[in-house]
């Protein structure tokens, strides 16, 4: 890593709170790191754990989920459902060898543009201290390893078979 590492973050923001907070940060011209790629959903409850896994698999260094504060959900309780899934997901990604710090959930209300700015900057700073996750590249390497292993296994099988043929003969 000779050049400065710029982590890539996929953000899932709920329409009513965190997306609006990001709009507010914009209107107030608050400056924050440009590493975010935002995907808007109506509610944090819509965030399927597979979205998060897909983001990591496709090369995200971090995933940020933004929802309304507990009790403030536009859809009454979607954020609680999100929280439950997040807790499980955090353990899951850890078991997969992804550092749990790469997945972050924040409650950011529509009036908290400044909190959004802080969270993004902080998250970028945290991820920048870690090596790139770069799962797509690792998948290629793992595929190579698997291919090599498979070759070895195949070769061993072939040898065994030959031996069997020769002993029967």
């Amino acid at each position, binding site marked *: 890593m000779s050049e400065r590492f710029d982590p*890539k973050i*996929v953000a899932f923001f709920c*329409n*009513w*709170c965190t*997306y*609006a907070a*990001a*709009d507010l*940060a*914009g*209107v107030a*011209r*608050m*400056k*924050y790191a*440009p590493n*975010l*790629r*935002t*995907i*808007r*959903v*109506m*509610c944090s*409850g*819509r*965030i*399927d*754990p597979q*979205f998060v896994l*897909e*983001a990591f698999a*496709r*090369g*995200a260094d971090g995933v940020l989920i933004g929802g309304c504060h507990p*009790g*403030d959900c*536009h*859809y*009454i*309780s*979607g954020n609680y*459902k999100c929280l439950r*899934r997040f807790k499980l997901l955090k353990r899951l990604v850890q078991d997969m060898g992804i550092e749990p710090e790469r997945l972050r959930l924040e409650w950011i*209300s*529509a*009036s*908290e543009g400044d909190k959004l*700015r802080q969270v993004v900057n902080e998250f970028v700073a945290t991820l920048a201290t870690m090596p790139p996750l*770069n799962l*797509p590249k690792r998948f290629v390497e793992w595929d190579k390893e698997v291919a090599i292993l498979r070759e070895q296994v195949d070769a061993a099988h072939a040898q065994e078979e030959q031996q069997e043929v020769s002993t029967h003969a």
Partner: protein
Amino acid sequence: MENNGKQPRIGVYICHCGFNIAGTIDVNAVCEYAKTLPHVALARTYKYMCSDPGQEMIIADIAEHHLNRIVVAACSPNLHEATFRGALQRAGLNPYFFQMVNIREHASWVHDDRAAATAKAKDQVRAAVARVQFHKPLERKRFNVEQSVLVVGGGIAGITAALEIANSGKHVYLVEREPSIGGHMAKYDKTFPTLDCAACILTPKMSEVREHPNITLWTYSEVQEVSGHVGKFHVKVRRKPRFIDEDLCVGCMECVSACVYKEPKFEDEFNEGLGKRKPIFMPFPQAVPPVVTIDPETCLKFKTGKCKSPCATVCDRKAVNFDQTERIEEIEVGAVIIATGFKAFDATRLPLYGYGIYSNVYTSLEVERLVNSSGPTAGDIVCRDGRKPKAIGIIHCVGSRDKKTNRWCSRVCCMYSLKLAHLLREHTGADVYQFYIDMRCPGKGYDEFYERLLDEGIQMIRGRAAEVTDWTMTPEEEGKLVIRVEDTLSAYVRRVPVDMVVLSVGMEPAEGADEVRRMFNISCSKEGFFLEKHPKLAPVETATAGVFIAGCCQGPKDIPDTVAQAGAAAAHAVALLDKGYVEIEPNTAYINPDHCSGCKSCIPLCPYHAIVFDDGLKKARIDEALCLGCGTCVASCPSGSIIQNLFEDEQIFSEIDEVLSNV
């Protein structure tokens, strides 16, 4: 099903937004990049996409180039998504073959690095181009609008809004927490800058509310539960027992005279605790409705059960009813106006000004009652220690413009302090000193009022008062309260001895504002005032369609602004009702019965009970009329058989894949 099955032909439009976007993002580079993306038939930039020529350009291109999908990279979809969908519709294309990319609020306004911001814009445009290919034609659903409005809060804002709506022929439910409507304004003596008598202009309106055939007035009541959506809100209102039958009571006050407490003994809330009331009382003579209320906290009948209840005996209409219980009223309304007002700053939070420590320190609201001819002293200015003040100090910005308490300016305190100075001087002839940071008198006739007060000989001392103390240093300070202040105009630290101190307390969000906000699903600013949809262009709307706000619940303001805002909110509500129908975004969810395994995982997750289980088919089904489109069930479905319109899995996955495709 236009364009379905055909190859996508996507038009991409990048907005300059003057320099707002083009100043930070290389819009031409983004445009050239967009042209290279698959299925993009054309890409253009334009100075203001939302303008008429911008929209016309899209419409012309759709016709000329046979475009069937449109992507616009501009500002937040919350601002202009509807605008561009309208353009698609005018061009004969389904409005949902559209995706908006936010490169202003989320990129150009928050980043300085031109290259990074441009790269971000490219990524997000690429994702939108990928996503829009999966869009399907959708139709908005129409619902009829209930022809009535709920107004929460019966202060001047709620009263104005209720009357405006009622006069248009619509029915209004006006719900007020206190026993009478009138709010804070009913407590005031005069109003600035015209010195109109507050009661003279308010009480006719209050009576009008009571008499109006289109208004159902529920005082001593609170909203308990709200469900539904714009056009059809189901509301439960809790009517607290006042132990008096409102329909029978005529407000003759015989019961009050008959009460076993011969003298009023309990703190009178309406008079800010300066006066006393009995357990059975009417808050003030002009109260609407003009009925008494029994306070069970102080009434002997409730406390000991041993009272002979002369109040009940004396009432020939038999209006006293000790067995009255709480009632729940259920109503359906098409729109809601929230006008829950404010709470005055609690001056005990700033002990340096001695409120609650020295008896002659008053809050401005207390002084309003004191100068009021129907107040506890009948307008006689007598301090708590019985003395008639010869010198009075008014301290501004108590609980306003203060990092220790509230940062915001409460907007009205300068003006009401001047008004109180005028009234106090008129009533007592005392020397009145104003201790101010800045005089903020913007408004029609306001600065003229300030000039007038200067001519009347009010002493103006510029400086935030440091403290109020009874520690005297000279014989003339003896027995007085001393206000210590740095007079920043003369650069001199002064000690001003006075007999009476008035603290001009600021405005805070009302008690219970947080519960109200959650009930109606609206946001608040970090101060706790309710958040408008847009500070300039939608000042009385909220993020929740059909819920409007008016008055000080939105932020501190004076009576003229409150009335104007209440009128605006009423106009919005009436417009909504008059239209007769609402269109709901089609982002609801539905279940593909071929894939549903009938596992029922989704059913308990729906906050609106919109998912039902079909026992015959052994499959779940979503009632689209109840679904509000959060998508929580979609994320939970193990078989992936729930689909949310506009937020389908393949749409979101394509976005994820594309924002990361150049990693």
